[in-house]
């Protein structure tokens, strides 16, 4: 069933997951993290990375034993036809909401930072154009696009080092000054930006080299960790702890001070260019949704589903009229949902799968 045409090379798979992880999360991470863990957030981040990698490991462990089966089929194999389908529907809903949340958040950030009076629906529709063009293609073309995203955004993270000249290394000390508890609380906000590795469920059947699936996921997680770590450490050194807690988007604030001889206010260029990264996150989840529906109902092609999904999303935007305050409330519960889907589910599913295997062996 794993359509042979939709093949993703190892490199493309790594970039696909990695660039899905880099999205809105990075922009707010220093803020959410320091609220919990103070200046020792980087330790929480390391722990978060371990948890994300472990969750990824469980994903691959299950998918590995069902080669050539799509996620929807694996779910039905393990959980039975109806429960499997129900769970798949939940996943599709989760991914669809993720598209909406990321898209609305992105548009709100653009409105706050760049185009204050721009009509929201117009912006949403404009961003949907490239999303539509990319997602309706074969996975192979999407893989190419991801490579482009990776390569053409390489220049962005080093810009953070511009802030180093005004930074205070001492801000990082003392390490764990307030004990371990804040660090443990700090794990929760770090789990959100790492999300994106769960697309591996959908990607696995399309991989060229399935044996390296976990290695690729590990590399992707680690690349994301490097970016998150850079962001967290530089902003901890740059901002006072009170600033970190009050600036909603510290990463943007950090970029605000970059002044080149010919361009001042670099964050405007940066944020505009940043849409490219967020688009990949959108595409990944939209593809997850469309492909999930395709697999669930045994359709031929995911491409026809993209347009109706985007129209639905646009309608949702027109009805809901997302605002920053509203989105923060949405995020609060959606974060919990996504931790459930991205972290608890792989472990649970793996456990069920193990139990089932054990049961079969006993029966035999």
């Amino acid at each position, binding site marked *: 069933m794993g359509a042979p045409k939709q093949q993703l090379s190892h490199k493309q798979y790594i970039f696909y997951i990695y660039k899905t992880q880099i999205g809105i999360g990075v922009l707010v991470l220093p803020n959410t993290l320091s609220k919990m863990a103070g200046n020792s957030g980087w330790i929480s981040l390391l722990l978060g990375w371990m948890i994300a990698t472990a969750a990824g490991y469980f994903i691959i462990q299950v998918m590995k034993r069902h080669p050539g089966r799509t996620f929807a089929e694996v779910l039905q194999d393990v959980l039975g036809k109806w429960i499997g389908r129900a769970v798949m529907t939940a996943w599709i809903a989760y991914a669809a909401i993720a598209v909406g949340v990321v898209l609305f958040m992105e548009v709100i950030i653009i409105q706050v930072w760049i185009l204050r009076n721009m009509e929201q629906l117009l912006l949403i529709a404009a961003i949907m154009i490239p999303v539509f063009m990319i997602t309706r293609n074969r996975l192979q073309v999407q893989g190419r696009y991801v490579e482009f995203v990776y390569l053409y955004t390489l220049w962005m993270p080093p810009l953070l080092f511009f802030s180093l000249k005004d930074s205070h290394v*001492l801000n*990082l000390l*003392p390490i764990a000054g307030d004990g371990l508890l804040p660090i443990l609380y700090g794990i929760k906000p770090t789990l959100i930006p790492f999300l994106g590795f769960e697309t591996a469920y959908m990607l696995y059947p399309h991989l060229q080299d399935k044996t390296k699936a976990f290695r690729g996921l590990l590399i992707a997680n680690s690349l994301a960790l490097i970016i998150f770590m850079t962001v967290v450490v530089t902003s901890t050194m*740059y901002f*006072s702890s*009170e*600033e970190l807690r009050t600036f909603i988007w510290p990463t943007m604030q950090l970029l605000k*001070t970059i002044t080149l001889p010919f361009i*001042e*206010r670099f964050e405007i260029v940066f944020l505009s260019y940043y849409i490219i990264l967020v688009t990949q996150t959108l595409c990944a989840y939209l593809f997850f949704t469309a492909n999930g529906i395709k697999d669930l109902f045994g359709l031929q092609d995911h491409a026809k589903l993209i347009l109706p999904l985007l129209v639905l999303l646009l309608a949702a935007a027109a009805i809901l009229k997302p605002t920053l305050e509203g989105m923060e409330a949405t995020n609060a519960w959606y974060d919990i949902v996504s931790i459930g889907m991205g972290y608890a589910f792989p472990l649970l599913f793996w456990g069920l799968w193990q139990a089932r295997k054990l049961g079969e062996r006993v029966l035999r």
Partner: protein
Amino acid sequence: MAGCSDRTELDDSTLITITGMDLADNGKLAVTGMVLDFNEESPSQEILLSSTGKTLRENRSLLSSKIGGEFLSGKLQIVIVSKRLLKAERLLPHLDVAYRDPKISNSALIVACDCSVNKLMDTKRSSQPILTEYIRKLIETGHASEITVRSTMQHFHYMETEEGITSSISEIKPVGKELAVVGTMLLGSDGKYAAHLSKEESMLLLLLKKQFTSPASFTTSIQDENHNKANVSLDINKAKVKVKTGYEEGNFVFRIHLPVVAEVVELEGDFRVGADKNQIEALLKEKLEEACRALIAKLQMNRVDPIGYGLHARAFDYGHWKEVRSDWGKAFAEADVKVSVTVAIDSFGVME
């Protein structure tokens, strides 16, 4: 398309480049704004506006009513604050509107002036670069030659919100037809005016803050063998600052070690360069230590810590820091700060 876009054609907008804030006689905020003048026929390139109101935002509306075009503050370059306002009120709440708006650049320089802001901005200058550029250059070169600090809006926000450091901003003053940098202004933990540092003291402050760009010049007078006063000037090329933090008898202890590599650029008096090198170094060390101690004593007396020893205290002795974090200025005043300097002269120039 007009309704749903925020297209603001550059030539239809009024860009404010300098905002000056002063305390009006009735206790309100007097704001002076400098806007760019795009009109080709007008001889000057900028226009001075002023108003008086409760807050910066209210004043902005008042200012914008005096001139056509869309009033934009995205290219704000300089914020000038009078000493009078700083003595009376905290500055940070006034600037809240600027920090809250992501459109406003936070690399605008914050400058204090020891006169009324209106007088400063209205000074008829003999040379004619636009005032924005003029003040900016003044501060940048002043900072490069170590006679004042350079604080942007972002730095200022950091210094105000960080518990372990107090604010320091550059200070200028009209001198005749020109403006001049006069040193550094220090604000206390309460955010109000605390002390003034001269240009020489500013140099030492930058040295201790590790913010100096070499060479930093230091001039003093030492006594030669015949007990004659001799002026000597140093160019400090390299300096490290090592701080050891301790806690003794209820007070923080900072041991500051300052190894300096310098070049003698001016040496009066009866010295033989080769033989007396060690002696000169010892004399200079004494002078530098003396100056540093005087500076720190002045800081402690005014209960300010613009160098940021609070960061050291927090980093290396978090337990005790937590007890004093609410009023670090007071704790610093009681702290025991010891300064030791070593001077190594690497060159006396081309004369013996």
